């Protein structure tokens, strides 16, 4: 890890901390949400951006974390932190099972298989509505939304926790991609056969990457549940899988900062657009098409291509 890498990423983290004191209330709330969703995008980026696994099913991992936390808190009165760890476990386990099956396929088939698994997971949530309350979702009881004396429904605490989670995920992802393990993931993405014939167990690495990715996604889902107090099936729907893809592509697939930039950019784009038209998702569509046509590397990817060649 070079000094410049560290300065840049720690700089962002410090900046976000400073924003805690500077942002007006509304944007303060938006940033808290953006940071949690950016953790989800960071998770997705490890599978898609670094390892080249085009998944359309990551919402199931986000959902696994969310429902792991939600069901534990709602039905068993398990407090926030242990519930969150349960959520992580659910995501990791699901990613392992899905990975063992789905990674037997690749490319387009992998995309469809993950899509189908996620759809099945979504339907399972609806099917067990007795426990999950189906589309309606669950409101996490207020007393479960605290870690010790920190009240997660408090705006300031929430921001700082979102910030802490985001910082850990960001640095973890930076460390990972600079680590030899991460380098091999990139090699897999670029040329799997070659990587295999360099002696790397490509199947095992892909599975590991997917499990890491799924676990981080679940961490975000679980955090979202406790921080915002609501667990709903729509978060596990196909749209949230597409969102992850969109954010990462927009920010820059295979860049450490890309996921955050993508979520931030898209959030504000939607926010502005929804004031102009009801069809604000139109913007998402146009952005996706323009990106694939003109900037397949995304915002941070373009910066890397033009200005900063070894940006992680």
């Amino acid at each position, binding site marked *: 890890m070079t000094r410049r890498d560290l300065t840049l990423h720690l700089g962002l983290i410090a900046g976000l901390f400073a924003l*805690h*004191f*500077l942002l*007006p*209330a*509304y944007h*303060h*709330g*938006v940033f808290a*949400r953006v940071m949690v969703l950016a953790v989800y995008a960071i998770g997705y980026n490890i599978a898609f951006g670094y390892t080249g696994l085009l998944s359309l099913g990551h919402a199931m991992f986000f959902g696994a974390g969310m429902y792991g936390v939600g069901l534990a808190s709602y039905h068993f009165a398990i407090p926030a932190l242990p519930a969150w760890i349960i959520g992580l476990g659910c995501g990791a386990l699901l990613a392992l099972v899905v990975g063992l099956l789905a990674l037997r396929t690749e490319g387009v088939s992998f995309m469809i298989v993950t899509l189908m698994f996620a759809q099945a997971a979504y339907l399972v949530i*609806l099917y067990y*509505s007795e426990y999950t*309350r*189906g*589309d*309606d*979702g669950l*409101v*996490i009881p*207020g007393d479960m939304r605290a870690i010790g004396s920190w009240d997660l*429904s*408090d*705006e*300031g*605490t929430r921001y700082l926790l979102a910030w802490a989670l985001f910082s850990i995920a960001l640095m973890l992802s930076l460390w990972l991609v600079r680590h030899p393990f991460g380098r091999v993931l990139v090699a897999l993405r670029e040329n799997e056969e070659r990587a295999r014939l360099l002696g790397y167990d490509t199947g095992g690495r892909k599975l590991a990457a997917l499990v890491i990715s799924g676990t981080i996604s679940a961490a975000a889902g679980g955090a979202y549940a406790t921080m*915002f*107090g*609501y667990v*709903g099936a*729509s*978060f596990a729907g196909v749209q949230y899988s597409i969102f992850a893809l969109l954010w990462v592509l927009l920010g820059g697939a295979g860049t450490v900062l890309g996921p955050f930039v993508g979520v931030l950019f898209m959030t504000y784009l939607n926010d502005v657009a*929804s004031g102009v038209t*009801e*069809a*604000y998702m139109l913007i998402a569509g146009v952005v996706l098409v323009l990106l694939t046509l003109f900037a397949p590397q995304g915002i941070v990817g373009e910066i890397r291509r033009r200005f900063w060649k070894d940006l992680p």
Partner: protein
Amino acid sequence: MTETTSKTKTSGLIQPTRRGALKTLAMGAGAAATMPLWARYTSAQSAEPIRIGFGKHATGIGAAYGRWYERTSVAAIEKINGEGGINGRPVELVTEDDGTDPRRAAEVLEKFANQSNCDVAFGTLFSHVVVGAAPRAGELKLPYFVCSEGHHVASGMLNRWTMQPGITDVKSQISAMAPFITDVLGKKVTMIYPDYAFGYDHRDNLAPAIEAAGGEIVGSIAIPPTETSFTKYFPQIPRDTEVIYHVMIGPAVLTFVKEMGEFFGPSRPEIFGFIDSLEATDLTSPGLEFLDGTYFWEGMPRYLQDDAPDYVTAYRDAVGLDANGASVSDPSDVSTSAHMFSCWETLHVIKAGMEAAGYQSTEDRQALIEAVEAMTLMEAGPAHPGGTKMFNGKTHQVFGPQYISKVEGGKLVVQKTVDYEETMYPDEVDYTSMSF
């Protein structure tokens, strides 16, 4: 009313420590950029309009409701402003699309509370959106008036900041309908309902209500909310069914009712439906002829009734409804009459609450909630065209009259009105004992 908590001056915006830090920073030269924003907070003076945030289902599966909820709300605000506003201040409706999506709805509440500086939020219909957004309202300490008819408010799953003073919940709607169904239509009832929370309110409450009225449920058919073809479900209807009880929601409602007609052909049992199955849908659509002679629940009559009082016609004119309950400018644009009146009434409740609380600024939000909790009888009239209602401050739920209408010549004609007294049930929660 039990007022155990002393009134604390909460800003409802940011925790005090952060605010302190902000102020300190704002005094420094470097933070000049944040000044205009502060100016906005502190200058919320009496000349400012009262802002009411309206979370509109503009897109997604609730869009037809959203459009009419907005029209009704705009008309109500116009009336209120015409009569001098609230506490002498004009009222302004701030509309945001929530996409009929819980996450978006929660964000919209944040926008109302923190960005557009709304005094209250209101207007959500779909129950999953209400359930998703209500916790945020509680955290933001933003009074949240929903118009949803879901049992979620009165069941106690929400919080002190969320109330439903404009529309009766499903549980009491059903208890009002059950005696009519068993007495007039038949004892053996098969129910068809959407397989999601709104449908569960029906599922869970109909059976006891029908049994209490001397009937029985012989069949219960849940249909997934995304379903687009329904015929294959109808064979599950037991042959000895005397009454079909149906309630459906979403874009496929017309298909549902049409295919039900095609299934039964000439030998249909009695049919009793919640008008939700045909809200925003023209009763004269091809394929619906078989509905003639069937019955519907209505929260407020869609068609102009012969004996309609003046305040009802005034309400209908203000919203822009023709005699058939469609838009005066487009007869094919049918309204959601049975639900949208709740926006009108809720806005009048907000007005009455603010006046009772002497509402001045967002600092008085808690007083507003307490003022509404103190309300009881709401007399029928220009503010309550849907009929005389009783508000229960403990459960945050209103109880109003329910209408049973029969389809006659393609129009709904009210057969029976059930007064609010017959719709009450024992309290399941006491929100007033909860802290703010």
